[in-house]
């Protein structure tokens, strides 16, 4: 066989593999640079009581942090899963109410049930900016030392909980 034919064929195959892989690459999935880092420092009010919350408000256990808002339609889809997760005594569930009206947020929860132990009111989105939030809802898992171990953008579902979250939470 011709030498240059082999050369061109190899180059062609390499480029094809490269491009083929690109077909299945989702540009919406961006790995957060915050993975492995500490949860950002914050001082924000509690949604219900307005008393000041900070990093010391976290408990000494695995924590799910969920960013949500009453105006967020996708948040409704994942809500039942959060309620389910909240029944697990080994996990703490903290909400961040993102750029919301307090009255709407409280009403939304009273209709659907409140899965969170405590809710941080982030009305200006400052904490969310520090977390790199760009698609509500977002869900994080923190370990006992408040190190971010997992981030999911968009609503969580049974598959994500089963395959990605539970293994981390039960560690």
């Amino acid at each position, binding site marked *: 066989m011709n030498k240059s034919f082999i050369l061109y064929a190899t180059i062609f195959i390499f480029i094809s593999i490269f491009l083929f892989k690109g077909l299945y690459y989702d540009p919406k999935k961006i790995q957060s*640079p915050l993975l492995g880092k500490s949860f950002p420092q914050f001082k924000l009010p509690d949604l219900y009581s307005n008393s000041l919350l900070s990093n010391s408000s976290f408990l000494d256990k695995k924590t799910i942090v969920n960013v949500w808002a009453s105006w967020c339609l996708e948040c409704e889809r994942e809500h039942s899963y959060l309620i389910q997760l909240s029944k697990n005594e080994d996990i703490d569930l903290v909400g961040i109410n993102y*750029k919301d009206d307090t009255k709407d947020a409280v009403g939304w929860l009273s209709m659907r049930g409140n899965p969170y132990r405590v809710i941080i009111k982030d009305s200006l989105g400052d904490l969310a900016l*520090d977390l790199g939030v*760009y698609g509500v809802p977002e869900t994080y898992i923190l370990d006992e030392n408040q190190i971010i171990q997992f981030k999911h953008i968009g609503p969580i579902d049974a598959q994500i909980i089963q395959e990605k979250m539970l293994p981390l939470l039960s560690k």
Partner: protein
Amino acid sequence: MRLLNLIIILLSMNVSYAKDIDKQYTNLIEELRCMVCQNQNLAESEAPLAVDMKEKIKEMLKMGKTEREIKSFLAERYSSYILYEPPVNTQNLILWLGPFAFVLILGFFLLRRYIK
């Protein structure tokens, strides 16, 4: 008269300072990606998150932060994907060096053929 001159100078300094910030601001929002609508930069985007980010950038510029500091602030939170000019790292080294390597290899083959 001297005082008046001083005031004029001070005022014009203030204007040039403001202009400087404006220019930095325009530069920045053109070089940063809107994370919600990924094919737009912040300047073009009116998505709520983009508006928030622009506010934050303005605030940081007024606090005297440099463009570089603001870019790394955002990249630390939103990953370097937010930058239209990505930093050179192992992940994208091939994209930065690929074209040069291509030209070199091509040049090598052409030269060899020419010498023969």
